[in-house]
């Protein structure tokens, strides 16, 4: 049963909603709950940052949104549609709304940069080869990848791979872009460049962004909403400043370890 009742206002309605979502995994030590009756929404056209320690369920959250995993209980709604109930063409249609930048970029090793970026256009849209070439080359130009189109992923640096991944994610003009650790393994200069590129693209295209990142506080400067995951629980903040006023001990600790510590170390 859908959680949405009455007429829907698509403009103001959250694009993604988690309603009492629980997700656990069975391991050697029994069942480990990573999300425990979690509730939050991703506002349309805004940037939501998901933060938290390793193994706290950040990537799982993205996979639930994409329907790559299903929750044990609760509902994950994208544009009012319950993801877990979708199958086949319905799920494929939902996924056309997304662009995803994977942690390791997930480029196809046997394809060149051009072929990687052109893949969604060739597989999902009926376009002539000339049109595909024009669109791909334009995106590569925007992301400062022109001249590298005939290289294979193994010949690229980490930062270039991420940019190719971003180029591929943006090809079908997605409404929602999910970034899974977009700057992991990159040097500070490249990290700033990626975030700069991200901010420029988002203001230009206007997609909803969900960023899973460890790069705190850099990524917080982009955030309209911050979601912190800890031991299955979730806390939602509307700004980085709001975090310091939380009374929860682990949030305080998180603030000290990340934001405050980083601010002090910059002086």
């Amino acid at each position: 049963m859908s959680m949405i009742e009455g007429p829907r206002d698509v403009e103001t309605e959250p694009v993604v909603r988690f309603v009492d979502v629980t997700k656990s995994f069975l391991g050697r030590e029994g069942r480990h709950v990573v999300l425990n009756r979690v509730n939050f929404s991703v506002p349309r056209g805004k940037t939501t940052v998901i933060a938290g320690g390793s193994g706290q369920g950040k990537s799982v959250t993205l996979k639930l949104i994409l329907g790559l995993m299903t929750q044990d209980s609760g509902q994950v709604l994208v544009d009012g549609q319950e993801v877990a109930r979708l199958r086949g063409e319905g799920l494929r249609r939902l996924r056309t709304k997304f662009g995803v930048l994977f942690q390791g970029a997930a480029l196809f090793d046997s394809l060149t940069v051009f072929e990687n970026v052109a893949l969604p256009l060739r597989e999902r849209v009926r376009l002539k080869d000339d049109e595909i070439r024009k669109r791909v080359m334009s995106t590569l130009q925007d992301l400062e990848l022109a001249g590298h189109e005939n290289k294979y992923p193994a010949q690229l640096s980490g930062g270039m791979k991420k940019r190719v991944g971003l180029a591929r994610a943006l090809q079908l003009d997605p409404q929602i872009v999910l970034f899974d650790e977009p700057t992991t393994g990159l040097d500070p200069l490249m990290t700033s460049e990626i975030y700069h590129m991200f901010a420029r693209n988002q203001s230009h295209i206007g997609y909803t962004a969900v960023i899973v990142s460890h790069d705190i506080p850099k990524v917080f400067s982009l955030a309209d909403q911050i979601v912190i995951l800890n031991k299955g629980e979730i806390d939602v903040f509307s700004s980085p400043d709001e975090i310091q006023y939380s009374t929860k001990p682990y949030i305080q600790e998180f603030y000290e370890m990340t934001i405050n510590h980083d601010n002090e170390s910059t002086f």
Partner: protein
Amino acid sequence: MRSNLYYSDIPRFLRPLAFIGNQGIYIVNDLGRMGLFLFYSIIGVFRHPFRFREVVKQLHFIGGGSVAVIFFTALSSGMVLGLQGYYSLHKFGAEGMLGSAVSLTLIMELGPMLTAIMVTARAGSAMCAEIGIMRISEQIDALECMAVDPFRYLISPKFVATIISVPLLTALFDIVGILGGYLAGVKLMGVNAGSFYNGMEQSVTNHDINLGIIKSFVFALLLVWISTGRGYFVQQIRGAGFGAESVSRVTTQAVVYSSISVLIFDYLLTAIIL
């Protein structure tokens, strides 16, 4: 948080039963997902657009790339059959039956079986490793997120190419194997060439050839199904571990399972059709 039973929560005398039950559930789950994998892979063959160029590429890799291996395996098997057959038949003065023995053994049994096992070792292992690496490096997830059906895009072309390649390679194996038997029996041991050909012509029927063809199709389906399926589910296979290690273990498992399945089905098909 603990919400399920640990093994340590179960009374000691019931643990073997719990272990058997747990293994049983895993096996049923595994068979279920492999069954669905086969279903979607076959459906993928008929989904638009058909990946003709990818099928040609796979035909080149699976079929063309296996020709040399099949040639040498067939030649040596045929020559061994020729020699062994000659010494066995010579005791009864029945060397004239050598052509019949070599050709029937190759066409009905050794040709389809050894071809399938050699293709599994050469191409099945490579297919499993390729898909396994694509799975652990999130390339298959990326395809799904782009709303591209991974079965149509990745798996089905391999199915088509294997099902075309293996029967053709089996035919090559049969011809080269018979040639090997002829070389060993006629040219080396002095069996009369006319009686070799005559024995072959008299004993091999369409039914025998059909059995060989049916076997080669079934073996092709088995090897490509198991090889690609194990790679696809690399992260769900119990005891496979993680990362590169999981791919290597699952690749070994795919070769072993494919080879055993081919041997079992060889017997079953012979028993049913013969």
